[in-house]
């Protein structure tokens, strides 16, 4: 499972403006709706449902909201760099400014987990996060997200 397989340049948002967790999730759901041609409300519901199991704010300013949807044809990833950090009920109670959203088809049990593990591993890397925070251009962000992995694979 590679990040390249999850995300397209169009799914990277360089400066998301949001003031709350709810708003950030709903903006991302909207964008995901455009990409996947699903109803944004359905996506948001799935994300909020997942948050009820426990926050996806994993600490160090990172959040990885995710969920499964019946009508998806494959895994979709979205990345957003927030203009201003927001409260995300994170485990370390630090505000969040990098969000990687992951949506998976209902049937993709193992792939869903593999993708989650991959994203989580990528964003655990402090140097990657620092570079992502220092970049406000969507293409450059996309390059960072996908390149770090090529270098790691090598």
């Amino acid at each position: 499972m590679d990040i390249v397989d999850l995300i397209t340049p169009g799914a990277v948002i360089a400066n998301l403006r949001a003031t709350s967790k709810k708003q950030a999730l709903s903006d991302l759901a909207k964008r995901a709706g455009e990409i996947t041609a699903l109803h944004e409300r359905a996506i948001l519901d799935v994300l909020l449902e997942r948050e009820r199991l426990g926050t996806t704010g994993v600490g160090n300013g990172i959040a990885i909201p995710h969920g499964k949807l019946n009508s998806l044809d494959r895994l979709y990833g979205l990345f957003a760099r927030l203009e201003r950090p927001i409260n995300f009920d994170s485990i370390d109670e630090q505000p969040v400014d990098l969000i990687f959203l992951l949506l998976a088809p209902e049937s993709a049990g193992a792939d869903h987990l593999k993708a989650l593990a991959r994203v989580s591993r990528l964003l655990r890397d402090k140097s990657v996060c620092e570079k992502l925070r220092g970049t406000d251009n969507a293409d450059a962000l996309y390059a960072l997200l996908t390149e770090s992995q090529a270098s790691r694979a090598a």
Partner: protein
Amino acid sequence: MNLAVLVLSGLVAASVFSSLLSFRIGAPLLLVFLGVGLAAGAEGLGLGPMDGRMVYLLGSAALAVVLFDSGFHTPVKAFRLAAAPALSLATVGVVLTAAVVAVPAHLLLGLDWPHAGLLGSILASTDAAAVFFLLRVGGITVRDRTRSLLEVESGCNDPVAIFLTMALAAILAGQPHTGWALAGDLARQFLYGGLGGLAGGMVIVQAVNRLGIERSLLPILALALALMLFSAVGLLGGSGFLAVYIAGLVAGNARLSAPQTLKRFQDGISWLAQIGMFVSLGLLARPSEFGAVALPAMGVAVVLTLVARPLAVFLALLPFRITANETFFVSWVGLRGAVSILMAILPMILGVAGGSVYFNVAFLVVVASLAVQGWTIGPVARWMGQIVPRRTGPVERVDLELPGAHHALVAYRIVPDSLVARGHRLPRWAMPSLVVRDGGSMLAHIAGPLVAGDMVWLFARPDRVGHLDHLFARPAEAAEADRRFFGDFPIEPTVSMGQLALSYGLPVNEDGLDRTVADYLADRFGGRPGIGDRVLLGDIELIVRALDEAGGVAEVGFAAEPTRLDAPRLAMFEPGERLKAWVSRLGG
């Protein structure tokens, strides 16, 4: 007179000063104490006109003090967590170790089998003092289950090894015996020791709580009663060592009227006892005699560490659900210490032929054990995935005990970036009363929100205070290794397994779906979960992140891929897993 006091206090002071050195170079502190004794001893400065009998007497009393203290600091929760496997280690494990060590003693030292068995039993017990010390002071937090197991084992196995040694030494010294008398003696040692310990512990609790004695005298009273118990039980034919350990356990877990005073005194006196024990054992040693037995002794040490202990631990722990890594770690932390050297004095006192051989060999084996295992405990614990990463930074906390009250008064300094400084609320059971701000003090409800630099005084139940720390601490940077330990995501402990299974497609049995994640995890560990315990479910792991005050699961982690933290690091312990699975299939 003055000279004697000067020498004694000088030795203690030298030992304490040497601790600075020890912390700097990381040398095992107990080894340093032994070194101080050697330097001052018969062949060093010649300060020690010590004879074996006196050292044995003082050493036993000091050991009793250390055991009382180790019982005192063992939470009853830890004891329950580990009692059964620890007892197996303390009995089966000790006998097996003694038996296996007898082999190199016979082959390398040329001792006949009974004498070789005597050496084996001398070296059979792990040293409570050394193990406690390394686990507590080593600056690492070892996972609950393993730590409890090691601590309870080292508290319980001394009586067994001591009994074995005394019995063998007495027989070899020519005292009459019969098999039945020995078995009866063993039973009496345990029975009297256990019952005496329970009764003595309760007496100590009542004496401390009820008699209204001046507070500074309380710890002295407790200590005196413990030593009285030790000798009384010993006179009756019971194990005084077992008795003081259990009495410490009872007293330490009871609600005492001045727990902090007692704890602090215990800490100090236990240090003094250890210094006394190791220094006087060093004083007694004659390094010039070591040369003759050095090589065989190293052979014995190698067999003990690499064969006897691992084999004994492996077999003693077979019936229990203990992972391969835990088993390996437990077998590695089988430190030998003062008890072994102390026991090695016995053959000399009782007049067993060639008595000094035991002492010299035991001395060298202990030095090797302290050096090798003492130095490597940290790396090995890390390698075996036995270290709990710190989740919070240091806190500035002052505890005051309130006589007669069930609450303690605690003060915290508010540091920037702590949860409280960022506006996090205190739990309802914590009652803030006074805030010291800019040199003035005011009532907490007038002071309003706490800000960095404040000092807040609050009342809370002593057993809950630890749960406040994370609110007042600077959050610790979560390192990569910590994420691996605790998992990627937090999961609410109250969520049902059904919901979780649905969201991630997890293989959970029908009957498990209604339970909460917390209950599910607790059940998987026999109702006694420990931090870092993990369950593999399909491709994910559920991890116990934190426990609540009642020992239930309070925080759960979710790893999206197996962390393999508990995967066996050494293949040699794996056949056991299969054997265990086989045995449990037979049973079920």
